[in-house]
Structures are given as C-alpha cells and as structure tokens.
C-alpha cells in the first residue's frame, strides 16, 4: 500500500493543477506527454540498463505515424495512439536487433545514429512529412466520439492524463512481473543472467520494443494535441533532456520519471520566463545539485533526509 501513496499524490496534483492553473493547460499537457516519454526511457534505461540517447527515434516515429494516419486514414484519436505505438515498437524492434548486439558507448552511439537517420529521412521525404515545414493538417475526431478537442486544451489535458495513467499502470505491472525482475537482473549483471539460462539479447530487445511502443504513444499524443509534427521530434536534444529528467527524478523508479519530468519542465518554464538568456544556468545548477547530493534522484530525498536525522551508527552496527 505504501507504494501507492506517491503515485496517487502525483495523480491528485495533476487533477488539482487543472483547476489551479486553468490558463496553463497547454504547458501542463506538454508535461504529461513528456512524462509518458520519460517513462519509456525509465523502462529501457532505468530497469533494463540499456544506455540510450536516442529514444526520440521511437517518439518521432509515433508522432509522424499518428499524424499521417489521422490525415490520410482515420481521425480517431485512440486508433491514432495504437498506430503510434505500433510505429514506435516496429522501429525499436528493427533497430534493436542491431543496437542490442553492442555494449556501453557503442550502444549509445548506435541509438543516437538511429534517431539521426530517421531525422534525415523525415527531412528528405518532403512530400510525405512536409520536411522542415512540419506535418500540417492533422485533424483529430472527438475522443470516444464524445469529447471534442477544444481551443483551451481542456479535452487535450484530460486525454493526455488518462493515457499517462494507463501507461503508468501498465508499466507498474510489467516491472513487478517476472519479466521486470529479469530486466533488473540484466541491469545488475548480464553475465550472471546468461549463467542462469536467460537470453539477455532477446530479453533486452523485448524491453526496447515495449519502451518503443510507449515512446510512440507519447509522440502520437503530441501530434494529436498540437496538431503539428516538426522534425524536432527526432532531435538529439529531446532524447538527452528526457534522460536528464529521468536522472533528476531517479532511474529505476516509475514515480521518479514523473517527479523528475515535472520538476525539470516547471523550473525550465519559470526560469525561461524570468530570464530568457540565462535560464539554462538554473537547470545546470539543479542537475549538479541532484547528482552531487542525491545520486539516486529526487525520489530518494525522503530517505536521505531521514538518514541525516537518524543516528548513522545504527546501520553500521548491525552489519557486524
């Protein structure tokens, strides 16, 4: 039960935010979409231990797939999400077959390369994607045929929040399953996992595909709600910032992804509004502070605080 308190508090805060900040719904929706994206990285990086700086490959594929689907095939938003998830999963499966053969730095470079290739493909395929002008003309039908997307972004917010909650619950079930435990095992020691009879390669590809589907859902959400897909969806900066958000909150904990993303984007939003020239300094200081003082991320803050108060000798004493 204690594990439920923090996620439920986050959900409550998200609901309250709708009423407290009625004029910032577009920004709040961006946070929620980003949370879905960072959750996908948490599964891949935080649980399975696959170092990636190219998760935008799957996010962008999902965005373009959902956008094109709504323009040319059907405007239903849930069908669009499914198409986005499939696109993300397909790109992850194809690239994963190659990427998961590598380790460490090589693997990171390959994930970056995949996103860069897709970026260039989308840029060249002007006729299909609109190239640098972006994909325009996305029209989305009402959610479930009932809730029309409005100018203020009320429907968009609730829609994104509902999808984020569904993704969170799905991932929470997966990380507690035998599969999730085996991913944590791979993170800790791939050699040992092989020695107990696991196929590390296929297990990691499976995690990458699930993460790719979730990233594709995030991209599809962004395409549907902003009704525009630009080349930036494949940008290196998007992958890298999302990883920083995850590290801020705490890797290997789903709530860490939620907290890190919210904090990063809020600080960025306020700092950029107050000082458009030096706001990156604030972000840099924040990241440094967390890495130095809370290497396990903000989610470890309560434990770190109790650790300061409770007598430190206790832990060492019961070791002997």
């Amino acid at each position, binding site marked *: 039960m204690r594990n439920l308190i923090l996620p439920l508090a986050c959900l409550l805060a998200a609901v309250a935010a709708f009423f407290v900040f009625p004029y910032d719904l577009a920004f709040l929706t961006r946070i929620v979409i980003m949370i879905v994206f960072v959750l996908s990285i948490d599964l891949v990086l935080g649980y399975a231990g696959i170092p990636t700086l190219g998760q935008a490959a799957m996010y962008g594929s999902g965005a373009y797939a959902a956008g094109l689907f709504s323009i040319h095939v059907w405007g239903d938003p849930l069908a669009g999400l499914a198409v986005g998830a499939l696109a993300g999963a397909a790109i992850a499966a194809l690239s994963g077959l190659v990427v998961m053969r590598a380790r460490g730095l090589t693997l990171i470079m390959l994930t970056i390369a995949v996103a860069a290739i897709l970026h260039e493909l989308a840029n060249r395929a002007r006729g299909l994607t609109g190239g640098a002008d972006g994909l325009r003309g996305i029209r989305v039908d009402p959610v479930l045929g009932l809730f029309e997307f409005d100018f203020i972004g009320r429907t968009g917010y609730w829609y994104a929040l509902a999808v984020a909650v569904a993704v969170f619950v799905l991932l929470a079930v997966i990380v507690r399953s*035998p599969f999730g435990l085996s991913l944590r095992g791979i993170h800790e*020691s791939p050699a040992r996992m092989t020695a107990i009879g696991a196929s590390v390669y296929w297990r990691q590809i499976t995690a990458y595909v699930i993460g790719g589907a979730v990233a594709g859902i995030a991209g599809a959400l962004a395409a549907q709600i902003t009704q525009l897909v630009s080349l930036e969806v494949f940008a290196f900066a998007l992958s890298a910032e999302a990883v920083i958000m995850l590290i801020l909150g705490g890797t290997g904990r789903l709530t860490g992804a939620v907290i890190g993303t919210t904090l990063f984007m809020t600080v960025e939003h306020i700092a950029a509004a107050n000082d458009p020239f030096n706001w990156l300094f604030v972000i840099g200081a924040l990241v440094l502070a967390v890495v130095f003082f809370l290497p396990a991320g903000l989610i470890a803050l309560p434990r770190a605080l109790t650790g300061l108060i409770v007598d430190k000798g206790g832990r060492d004493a019961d070791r002997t």
Partner: protein
Amino acid sequence: MPTGLEVRGLSKRFGGLVVAEGIDLDLAPGARTALIGPNGAGKSTFANLVTGILRPSAGTIRFDGRDIGRLSERQRVSLGIAKTFQITNLFTRLTVRENLRLPVLEREGRCMRMFRPAQGDPEVEAEVDALIRQFDLEPLADRPVSDLAYGQQRLVEMALTLALRPRVLILDEPAAGVPSSETHLITDAIEALPGDLAVLIIEHDMELVFRVAASIVVLVNGRILTEGTPDTIAADPEVRRLYLGGEDG
C-alpha cells in the same frame, strides 16, 4: 547408458598457447571431485569449457551419453550444468530473496510473463524459502546483497546456482576472498549439498579441499599430472614438490 559428465581428450589452444591438453575427467552423480593446481594451470579454463563459455579446440564432453560440446551456455544450464563465479557476481542491488527468486523463475521458463507479479507464487516462494534456510540466510533475506559480508555473498552465490537445480555443480574457488574466520560457512554449505549432485570444486584452500573432496585431480600446465584419493595425493612426492610443498624446495 552412462550417467553424469564424461570428458575425453579436452584441449584448448589460444593461438600457440596451450591452456588445456588432453584432459579426461568423469563426474558421476554424487561425485565430490576437487580440481587443484598452481595458478595458470588451466582450472578455470576447464570449467569454462565444460559450461560452454569457451569452445574446445579438441575433445568431447558428454552428459548422460549425449555430446554437449557444441551447445551454448544457456542450453547446458537447462540440461543441468551450472557453475558459480570465481569472483562473486550477484544482483547486488536486489535482495537475497530476489536473487534466489530470479533463477527459480528462469529455470521454470516464466521470465517472459509480464502481467502477474514476480513475488507471491507459493511454489516459487517455498523453494526460495527452503534455499534461504539451507544456507542460514534467514535474517538477511530481505536485505540487498550489497549489504552482506563477502562470506555471506559467497553463500548466496552457491544458493543462486543451486536454485537452477543442477545435476552437475562446478564451484569455482568457492572460498576465494573469504576471510579464514568465515571459511567454515563455505565448507559446511558444501558438505550439506544434495547427495546425488555431482560436484567439481576448484579451490586453493587445501584444508577445504581435503575435508570435502572424495577424489582429487591435479592439473599442471593444462595437463592432468595425477589423480586419486586425498590420501594418495597428499602422499604423492611429485605433487608435494610441484604444488603442495612448493616452498620447501
């Protein structure tokens, strides 16, 4: 049909370097065989050849009469050949219980299940609890492995490997790095292993070897120098000169 492990003429060369040459070795169910020899004799290489981490240059490995020399490490694990690591290699941020749950789930082929919790299956938990009791790890069961003393980690290492229900267990220096005050934990654990399990122990600690081994194989420069019961090995002048009593000249 012969049962157990049967190694014939096993050789391994890395370019011009011969690390194993014509090794013959049998491990029947219930065997307690120690493989000893000076550093660089090829003991760990032999273990890696049997478990499939390395491919032999020549020779055969049979298990229950079946040639397993070309099977992968994973396939040999599923047949029942398991090895502990010379340097402890555990899931250090997972608890002891999680470390033992994982090989049980993996052995049962349940690790692709995504929609039910890993924890709470009564059969799996009963097995994990039994291992925790067998290795006297009850008070530590819910601690992360990184909290444990090295000797205790070696016990988790053995318990984790035993959770695969192997029929051949290779212990690669089970007491390496364990302070002498804790060596008895390892010795006791080895003596408590199931009677029908074939055990091959690679070890430098002669006290431990002479307590648990029923037969000893001496490996020097990748070749078997001699083999026999602990008494004959202890009395063998060449073994004493080459290895056991090296410092006497």
